[in-house]
């Protein structure tokens, strides 16, 4: 059932991708900012480049927009080589981090800029600019200078200015980071609705994992200039490939241990696992651990007894820090259940302990 709700882009495999990043590397002086990145973006997809500052996500965006040249590799769009074209010949438009609206032009002229420089006929320009103004609900501000607008309004104008050109691909460089929390939530849902409505492919850059989860069809997680994992938000949360992915997206318990004779051992926790003997790392989400009041466990579950060290009330849920003996601490998220104290039995399902690479 749930697979219906998940927007799994099945078209990725069948249709040729809209954008192909092939083995792209970028080096600034001696610093390697991007290392051998390969990434495909399907037409109509909302893909997010997620990473900490310095992970290379903005550099990758700038390579696609044409503001930087790759040191190695190629970028292709719709069967055409992109990275050899100057920025003004690419059918790609960008929404800049601080919007970069032209201060000497009013809202209408800002939006019309792209169509004017490309020599679109006058009557067509005015119609399309009107449509774009209505789309972002800024028609009443058409003659205002950008300096008179609030952050959210500037954001909308920047979006309209890019979308009016009907790009094949829209690049968004942390467009919501300058807005306050409430406005950001509102703009997130507007952005998502807009993307569904017009069907343009979005490549979105952010360092905010919640934002990435809320908006994206797929997330490409970057770390130190390399791709850590590319998957749908649900997939990347439920099955993180690496310890970094598990920790960066949501909270997790990283269990370091080993597999020997088909038994996984992490501190006091032990469970059967049919794999070759090796040191191993597991990610166990706090909400996959439950209280076990009757002390009985199913066959596919691991039970342990732990002392509650700390309890943080979070409205709908409670975050516990528990000691399962020998100083091994685990975070547990329970539905709000009132104050807990002392020792309790906990269980988690073996399938929820996800093997990750370091």
């Amino acid at each position, binding site marked *: 059932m749930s697979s219906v709700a998940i927007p799994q882009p099945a078209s990725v495999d069948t249709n040729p991708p809209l954008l192909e990043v092939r083995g792209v590397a970028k080096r600034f002086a001696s610093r390697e900012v991007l290392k051998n990145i390969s990434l495909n973006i399907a037409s109509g997809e909302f893909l997010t480049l997620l990473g900490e500052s310095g992970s290379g996500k903005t550099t990758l965006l700038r390579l696609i*927009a*044409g*503001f930087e040249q790759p040191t190695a590799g190629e970028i292709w769009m719709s069967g055409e080589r992109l990275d050899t074209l*100057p*920025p*003004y*010949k690419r059918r*790609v*438009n*960008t929404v*800049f*981090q*601080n919007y*970069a*609206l*032209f*201060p*000497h032009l009013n809202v209408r002229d800002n939006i019309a*800029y*792209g169509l004017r*420089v*490309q020599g679109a006929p006058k009557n067509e320009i005015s119609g399309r600019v009107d449509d774009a103004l209505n789309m972002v609900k800024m028609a009443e501000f058409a003659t205002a*200078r950008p*300096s008179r607008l609030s952050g959210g309004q500037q954001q909308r104008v920047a979006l309209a*200015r*890019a979308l009016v*050109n009907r790009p094949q691909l829209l690049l968004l460089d942390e467009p919501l980071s300058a807005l306050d929390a409430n406005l950001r939530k509102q703009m997130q849902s507007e952005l998502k609705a807009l993307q569904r409505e017009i069907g343009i492919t979005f490549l979105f850059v952010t360092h905010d994992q919640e934002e990435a989860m809320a908006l994206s069809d797929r997330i490409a997680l970057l770390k130190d200039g390399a791709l850590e994992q590319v998957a749908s938000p649900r997939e990347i949360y439920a099955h993180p490939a690496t310890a970094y992915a598990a920790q960066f997206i949501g909270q997790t318990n990283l269990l370091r241990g080993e597999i020997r004779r088909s038994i996984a051992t992490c501190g006091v926790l032990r469970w059967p696992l049919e794999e070759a003997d090796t040191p191993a790392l597991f990610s166990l989400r706090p909400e996959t651990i439950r209280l076990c009041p009757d002390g009985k466990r199913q066959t596919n579950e691991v039970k342990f007894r732990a002392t509650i060290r700390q309890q943080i009330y979070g409205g709908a849920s409670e975050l516990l820090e528990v000691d399962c003996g020998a100083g091994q601490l685990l975070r547990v998220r329970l539905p709000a259940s009132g104050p807990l104290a002392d020792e309790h039995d906990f269980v988690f399902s073996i399938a929820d302990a996800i093997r990750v690479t370091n």
Partner: protein
Amino acid sequence: MISSSLSPMPSASQTDFAMYSRAYKTIVSTPPLLWVALFLLLPYALMFAHSFWAVQDGVIVHHWSLSNYQKLLTNSLYADVLFRTMRIAASVMLCSLLLGYPLAYCLSFHSGQRKELLYQLVIVPLWVSYLVRGYAWKTILGSEGVLNGFLQYAHITHEPVSFLLYSPFAVVLMLTHIYTPFVFLPIYASLEHIPRPLVEASQDLGASPASTFFRVILPLSMPGLLAGATFAFVLSLGDFLAPLLVGGSSGTMIANIVQTLFGATYDWPLGAAISVCILLITLSLLFLTERLEKRWSFK
């Protein structure tokens, strides 16, 4: 409770503070105001008064009349020199814009790592005395000068070219050399203030580099361009050393006339009348550029 018990306190300290700050403001602003009154307003007033007086038998008599201004309007010599001066000033403005703007543009947008060094190189001539640079041009342009020497050595000419020195051309050349850094500086400052994402946004929206220049960079650097143009024009308008050094009789400018009237001829009233005219031209120009600069600022 708390607020009512505390309320008299700040008001007392506020009056203290207000008195203190008023005294402070008076002490700080008096010397500059005195300076302005003594060395700017008083001389202007004197000049203005002189322009309505006259000279009789070598003495200035305080008879108020418009005769000096009448003389300026009827004697075509003054109008001719004034127009020549404005022509020269306009040429200097144009030439130093044509040199200064591309220089500032290249430095600001396309010089990369060498920006600081190149900037210093542009500024260095400002440290050299005006007179030294004037005499340097004499040495270069004179009939025994470097340029003529080269032209004859290269067999381009057989005898010294005489129009190089002591001509309006020489004046324009020397003033352009002197005022180009003054034009460069405000333009460079305004170019440096253009956020680079705006240039990227323009290209992103499909504008070629040339189109980006005319639609984004040029309009946004307009305040600097206007300031630079005003510098060059106004400073050239009042210059008298360049025409004195390299101008000859055909390159005489209005300031030379004023200098002669005040010095050799001892006709201070007529000199003052000309000065008032120049001042009015300058002021109306400054007024105009300020209006234009406001029109082109988008803060």
